[in-house]
C-alpha cells in the first residue's frame, strides 16, 4: 500500500470522520474546555500527543497478546483474550498518560507547564479510548493505526480550537438567556460539524 493510502486515511481521520464531530467522542472535555482559546490549544496538543502514542501501543498489545490466536507465538494458539481489551486499554492509557507526564516534567518543563493540568484529564477522555477501540474494530495495520491515532488527535485539535474561537466571539452577541452556555455550544458544534461534512466527497 502506497503513500496515497495513508494520506487518504489521514484526511479521513482529520476531516471526514472527525472523532468529535462525526463520532461524538471526547464531547465532555470538548464542551467544558472550549471557553478559552489558549486552554483549548493546550488540551488539543495533549490529545494529539497521547492519541499518537496510545494507538500504536494498543495495536501491538491486541495483535500480539489479546486477539483470537494472538498468543500463537508462544505456542498457545487456541487462547482468545479479546474480552480483556477494554480493561487493558484503560490501564495502558492511564499508564501512558502518567509516563508522558513524568517524561515531560523531566525533559521539557515548559511543555509540561502548558500541558500539565490537561494530561490527567485525558485519561478519561472518550476520544483516546475510542481511538483504540476503533482500530480494533476496523482491523487496521500497525502503520494505519499510527496514522489514524495522529489524525484523530489532529481532528480533535482543529475542532476544539474552532469552537473555542467561535465561543470567544459569541460573548459579544445577543444570545437568549436560557440558551447561553451548553445550549449555544451544542448548536455551534452542530454548525461546525455540518461544515466538516462538506469534506465528505474528498477521496484521494
Amino acid at each position, binding site marked *: 500500500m502506497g503513500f496515497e493510502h495513508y494520506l487518504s486515511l489521514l484526511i479521513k481521520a482529520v476531516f471526514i470522520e472527525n472523532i468529535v464531530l462525526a*463520532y*461524538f*467522542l471526547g464531547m465532555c472535555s470538548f464542551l467544558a474546555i472550549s471557553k478559552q482559546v489558549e486552554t483549548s490549544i493546550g488540551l488539543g496538543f495533549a490529545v494529539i500527543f497521547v492519541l499518537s502514542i496510545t494507538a500504536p501501543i494498543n495495536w501491538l498489545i491486541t495483535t500480539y497478546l489479546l486477539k483470537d490466536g494472538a498468543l500463537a507465538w508462544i505456542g498457545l494458539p487456541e487462547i482468545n483474550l479479546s474480552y480483556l481489551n477494554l480493561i487493558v486499554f*484503560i490501564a495502558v492509557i492511564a499508564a501512558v498518560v502518567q509516563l508522558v507526564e513524568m517524561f515531560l516534567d523531566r525533559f521539557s518543563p515548559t511543555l509540561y507547564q502548558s500541558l500539565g493540568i490537561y494530561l490527567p484529564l485525558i485519561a*478519561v477522555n472518550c476520544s483516546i479510548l475510542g481511538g483504540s477501540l476503533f482500530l480494533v*474494530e476496523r482491523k487496521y495495520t500497525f502503520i494505519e493505526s499510527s496514522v489514524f491515532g495522529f489524525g484523530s488527535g489532529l481532528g480533535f485539535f482543529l475542532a476544539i480550537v474552532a469552537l473555542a474561537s467561535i465561543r470567544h466571539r459569541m460573548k459579544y452577541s445577543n444570545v437568549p438567556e436560557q440558551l447561553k452556555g451548553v445550549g449555544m455550544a*451544542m448548536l455551534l*458544534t452542530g454548525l461546525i460539524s455540518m461544515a466538516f461534512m462538506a469534506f465528505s466527497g474528498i477521496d484521494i
Partner: protein
Amino acid sequence: MAILSKKSRSALYDPLVKTNPISLSVLGICSALAVTIRVDQALIMTGAVIFVLSTSNTIISVIRKYIPSRTRIIIQLAIIAGLVSLIDQVLMAYMYNMSKQLSVFVSLIVTNCIVMGRADAYAMQNPAGNSFLDGLGNGFGYGAILIAVAFFRELFGSGTIYGISIIPEFVYNLGYENLGLMVLSPGAFIVLGLIVWFQKEIWKEKVK
C-alpha cells in the same frame, strides 16, 4: 411515598429534571449523541447505563470506607470497567445485531463521565441504599434525554418510531421528505442543543 425518606427521594428524583446529568451538568454527552439515531438503540443503551451506574454506585458505596483516597480513581475505574465488560459480553451473546450497531459505544460507558462522576461525588460519601437510588435516578435522567433526542431524530430523519412508520403514506405523496440531516451527526447536536434550551426555559425557576 412514605417508603423513601426525603433524602432518598431527592437522590432518586432530582436527576430526572432538576440536576439532569446530560442537559444541566453536561456529563456523558459522548455516548448520548452517538446512539440516538433510532429509539431502540437508545433504549438498549439506557438499560446498559442504568445497570452499570446503579451497580457501580452500590459496590463503591459498600466498600467506600476501605478505598484509600489516593488510589480511588483507579479502583473506581477497575470496578466500572469490569461491569461494562460484563454487559458488553452479555449483549454480544444475546443481542448480537444490536451490539454490532452500538459498536464501541457500549465499551465507552467506562469513560462516560456520569458513571465516574456519580461514583466519586455521591457514592464515596453516602450509604449503599441512597447510592443505588442515585444511580437509578441519574440513569433514568440520562435515558430520558437519550430517548427524547432519539425520538426526534428518528421521527424526522426516518419517519418512524421504534421502527414503526408514523408518517402516513399520503403525506409523502404530497411532497414531504425525510430530513436526511437528522440522521447525520449535526442533527444530534442541534436537537440536543434545542432540548437543553427548552428544558431551561420551562423549568426556569427550579433549575439553576
